[in-house]
């Protein structure tokens, strides 16, 4: 059974189309990544799954229940850690989590135990009496994640869980995500961090400007990038001339141009590196560095979205 089935989902805010005709399935028991830059429609999709937004058209089914028509049922299955932690500035972490634990179904006694256990696990216990405005960005993020850990939902949603979080905490939170999956939850992680997606997600959907661009496992996505090799050249000189010199070569199907960097996708990258350097130098471009590598998820993203380097 699909944990989530998204069918022709469209979400508009006034004139703006945030998500346009999205179709995908998320399987029960997997860690699924929604990857895309800010404004790509990831959060809108997640918030609709959590019934916070209503679809403009189409529908989303969570464990076969429609978010449009069976919201009360869907919410029993879903727990979400929001991108922006939700609390008033005077709230204290302990009170917030205690209230949350009780509203998701724990008795008062159970709630105290599970909150203490979760706060200790996330190193939040020492912050329990502080007010929300006194917490760092990373601690606030952990507080948001603690809500989902306490809830233990069948479908756990994390919207950019490690944004503003230090490296050590990031790894700890990835362990939490994996642990939730191991304990039976289906997990959806929205991120714009390619490394994070590669590290924890079993399947990934790349979204861009409200549309699904591709879907598959990390390996499947990398295999779809034509050429197989990525040649990255750092240079000094006119970028247009660099582009023209590169395009004169055979077999350059796709490329991306930055101000001082050009990335080309091609076969047999190692063998052709010298040819590329030669072509650029002939055009008066000074080559500072050349690297040949397998495609990363960054490359996959740029290949499927057509986004330019440095595009915000």
């Amino acid at each position, binding site marked *: 059974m699909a944990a989530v089935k998204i069918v022709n989902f469209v979400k508009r805010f006034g004139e703006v189309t945030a998500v346009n005709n999205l179709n995908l399935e998320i399987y029960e028991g997997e860690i699924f990544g929604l990857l895309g830059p800010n404004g790509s429609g990831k959060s809108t999709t997640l918030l609709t799954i959590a*019934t*916070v937004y209503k679809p403009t058209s189409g529908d989303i089914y969570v464990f076969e229940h429609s978010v449009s028509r069976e919201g009360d049922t869907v919410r029993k299955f879903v727990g979400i850690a929001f991108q922006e932690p*939700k609390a008033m500035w005077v709230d204290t972490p302990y009170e917030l989590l205690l209230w949350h634990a009780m509203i998701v179904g724990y008795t008062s006694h159970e709630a105290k135990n599970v909150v203490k256990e979760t706060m200790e696990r996330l190193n939040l216990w020492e912050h329990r009496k502080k007010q929300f405005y006194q917490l760092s960005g990373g601690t606030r993020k952990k507080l948001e994640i603690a809500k989902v850990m306490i809830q233990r939902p069948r479908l756990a949603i994390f919207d950019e869980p490690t944004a503003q979080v230090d490296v050590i905490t990031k790894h700890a939170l990835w362990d939490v995500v994996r642990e939730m999956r191991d304990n039976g939850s289906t997990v959806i992680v929205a991120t714009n961090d390619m490394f994070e997606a590669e590290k924890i997600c079993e399947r990934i959907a790349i979204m861009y400007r409200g549309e699904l661009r591709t879907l598959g496992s990390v390996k499947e996505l990398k295999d779809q990038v034509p050429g197989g090799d990525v040649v990255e050249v750092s240079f000094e000189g006119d970028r247009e001339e660099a582009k023209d010199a590169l395009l004169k070569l055979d077999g350059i199907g796709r490329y991306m141009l930055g101000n001082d960097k050009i990335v080309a996708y091609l076969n047999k990258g190692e063998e052709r590196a010298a040819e590329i350097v030669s072509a650029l130098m002939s055009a008066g471009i000074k080559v500072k560095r050349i690297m040949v590598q397998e495609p990363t998820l960054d490359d996959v993203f740029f290949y499927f979205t057509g986004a330019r380097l440095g595009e915000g």
Partner: protein
Amino acid sequence: MDLMGDLKALGLLVRWDLTRMWRRRMFIAMRVIWFTVQVSVFGLALSAMVRFRGVVAHSIDYYHFYLFGVYTSMLFSISVSNAYEVAEEFEEGIIEYHLSLPIKRSILSTGRALGGGIAAFIFTLPMYAIVLTLLGWGSPLALFASLIAALIFSVGVVGLVLSIVLSVKSGDATDILFGIIDAIIIRLSTIFYPAVVLAKIAPYYYAALANPISHFVDLLRTLFFFEEYKILAVTDPLLMGCYLLGFAAGLVSTAIYIVERKLEGGGWR
């Protein structure tokens, strides 16, 4: 979720609002002190002035009239101040958090209306105690009925507040709208002017007759001083009680409808 689960969620939502009220305890203490000064100094001076100028009949003590009026205006204003709290919660994304919780939307809206109403009611209890100390505590039945009426009234006002704030979804509109509502609705009522006086200006009079504030304040007056106010009240106590019940049920139902059918996250201006 079963009935017990729904009731537990309702209780926790009420607790949400009570926790917020408790955090404002210093503010409440200051309001109570100011209220005491208002009713004991300015209220007495005002009543003496009214008596001296022979504005009302000798059988009526304007001080009685005034004290219930000033308490009602306080209860209404405190209930309306929930609008600013809900607006702030919207800005902080708390509404989105609440919408994602595993509870029915009808429970969410009822819980917030009840919670806001109970919080406003408790907030003004010390002021009510001061009023009753100055006027006499009346019969236990009158006291009990007046407390129930105050609770129903404040829940109704918070239902109105939720319906409007969650519909307009704008901090600026909330500020303007509730500034106007707080100022005008109190004045278009029998809080400070008896219905018989307002009867001389037809639009004013009919606005006051339709105004739930008039029904609440006149109900309080007739509960404690029936003989004194039976001819001044907008209608008889039973009808006023029914009107208040209808007001609260109608507005809480509207809030439920809006939260269940219309409300979604985002779009806050």
